[in-house]
């Protein structure tokens, strides 16, 4: 047993996910696409809006703090 489930796999995390998706290659491809879209959605909708104010790229005002 390794640290993570895919530690024993031959081809890493993404390979492990691919092998555990159901169906034939086409079904796997479609599910993968849906997963990618879901991850991008979560990033754009929740993660990035949360992270942005913590990063010093977008302060436009002058202030005395």
């Amino acid at each position, binding site marked *: 047993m*390794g640290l*993570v489930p*895919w*530690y024993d796999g031959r*081809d*890493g*995390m*993404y390979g492990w996910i691919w092998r555990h998706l159901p169906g034939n290659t086409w079904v796997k491809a479609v599910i993968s696409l849906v997963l990618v879209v879901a991850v*991008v959605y979560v*990033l*754009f909708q929740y993660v*990035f809006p949360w*992270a*942005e*104010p913590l990063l*010093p*790229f*977008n*302060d*436009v*005002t*002058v*202030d*005395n703090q």
Partner: protein
Amino acid sequence: MAVSFFGELLITAGLVLGLFVVYSLWWTNVVADRAAGKQADEVREDWAHGRGGPGVLDTHNGIGFLHVPSMRNGEVLVEKGTSSEILNDGVAGYYTDPVKATLPMSGKNGNFSLAAHRDGHGAKFHNIDKIGKGDPIVFETKDKWYVYKVYGTLPETSKFNVKVLSEVPEESGRKKPGHYITLTTCTPVYTSTYRYVVWGELERVEKVDADRTPPKELR
């Protein structure tokens, strides 16, 4: 094995960072322009129906529009406040803190100080470096056009330099009370290390006619 696991993490991190750039420079503009368009329509609608009549401040949805031909970005809605919640809607905000802006509608001497994003969230002041001395800045309200003329720029100053917002912004070279306008945003592009400042002075005020014919600077 540990190497391939680590390599995948690095690839994933790279993809996420790449997506963050896409988010910052493209998606926030899409969201902000949509919000600004909606709020601008509401203001225009209110004006057309005589709500928020002459002199009355409708600060909820914005007080007017900024037109800066040298920035080539059409009209920018102006709202109260410079917090990120306000500015992220793709509008310019007038300062309430640390130095309160003097609104042109008040008719009083003072400084109409504004801020907007340089990149992302509508990037309304992206082209601030294209503004030169003598260029017009026009502020449109329900019943007046306030025509300002740019007389000074400060391409780089500290973000703590609140004196640029003063009623008489002495750093711009003016020493006497007057009707000033100040635009601030961050610089260099894509970062927030310094602030870029543009100063203008009121040249004249025109009444808005029935067709809302813009002043000659915007034609």
